[in-house]
């Protein structure tokens, strides 16, 4: 990843993460197809809701004829981590206009957030509207198209996981967390490692007690508080 922050660099930087989108997007399309959702509903979800894990949950809740209120609450809970990510990312765009801030916020995802955090390690903490928009737009379009293709192919592919594409997303997060770990000189390696271990332990114990998405949130917040305390002791 180079320090350049142009639109073109944004497109190039986001390409490795596209595999994750294609893998999971195809999987979502296939699930939606087998849940008897029409192409229009799949497109509506991907282009209007645009939230990977929430889309899976909405699909299963629609299938079970759950009430709309339940679907809304679940969506909010699953996506509440976005509040943390957006607040974190927004600090890099305070110099941009409010309108540009809102545009960036509209298309932020786990992946483009993580990518941006990796990027700013290379640019002395700077990000640009052009770079972030490029990453966001490519991710948005690839996700939408992948889910629709998945829904169309749904009937034809017997087992899409056979080729390992479902692991692309996990691999991507492993790569992003590793690159974050070695390049965030501000926090340093030992502190980050301790925080990571702490998060893993909290998450491990929490998923027996609550939903995965809630456990993710609890582990994240606990990890941040733990990190703050450890930094004070340093």
């Amino acid at each position, binding site marked *: 990843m180079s320090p350049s922050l142009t639109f073109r660099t944004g497109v190039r930087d986001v390409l490795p993460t596209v595999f*994750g989108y294609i893998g999971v997007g195809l999987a979502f399309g296939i699930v939606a197809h087998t849940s008897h959702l029409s192409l229009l509903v799949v497109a509506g979800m991907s282009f209007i809701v645009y939230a990977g894990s929430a889309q899976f949950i909405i699909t299963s809740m629609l299938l079970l004829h759950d009430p*709309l209120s339940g679907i809304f609450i679940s969506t909010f809970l699953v996506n509440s981590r976005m509040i943390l990510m957006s607040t974190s990312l*927004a600090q890099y765009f305070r110099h941009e206009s*409010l309108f540009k801030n809102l545009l960036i916020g509209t298309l932020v995802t786990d992946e483009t957030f993580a990518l941006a955090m990796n990027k700013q390690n290379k640019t002395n903490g700077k990000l640009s509207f052009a770079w972030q928009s490029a990453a966001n737009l490519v991710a948005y379009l690839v996700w939408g198209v992948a889910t629709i293709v998945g829904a169309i192919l749904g009937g034809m592919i017997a087992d899409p996981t056979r080729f*390992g594409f479902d692991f692309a997303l996990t*691999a991507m997060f492993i790569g992003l967390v590793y690159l974050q770990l070695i390049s965030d000189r501000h926090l340093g390696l030992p502190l980050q490692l301790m925080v990571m271990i702490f998060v893993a332990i909290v998450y491990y114990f929490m998923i027996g007690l609550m939903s995965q998405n809630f456990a993710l949130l609890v582990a994240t917040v606990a990890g941040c508080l733990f*990190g703050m305390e450890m930094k004070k002791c340093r």
Partner: protein
Amino acid sequence: MSMSLTELWAILGCGVITLASRVLPFAFVKQVNMPAWLIDFLTFVPITIMTALCCQSLFVANPGHLATLNVANCLAAIPATIAGVLTKSLLMVVVVGIMAMAVIRYFSIGG
């Protein structure tokens, strides 16, 4: 090509909720000077969220009981991590990870 009224409301409602979660923090941060402790807290968000997202694929939840490992994912994570250490390239981590998982599935390792 059809959409029921429930589906339409679910999409629009969830769309608004998701959009608000993403956009409102940007408006907030732009307008308000954040206290130092909050900025300090937020510096840990990237590493903690990414770690938790990894854990989500590496652990299997067993409600009411302790979690277990997702053996296939954990095994595939090893070559993927090594690829990251050796190349420092995100693309290589993803490609090696996919290939490792394809091999694991081919031999039906890890269930």
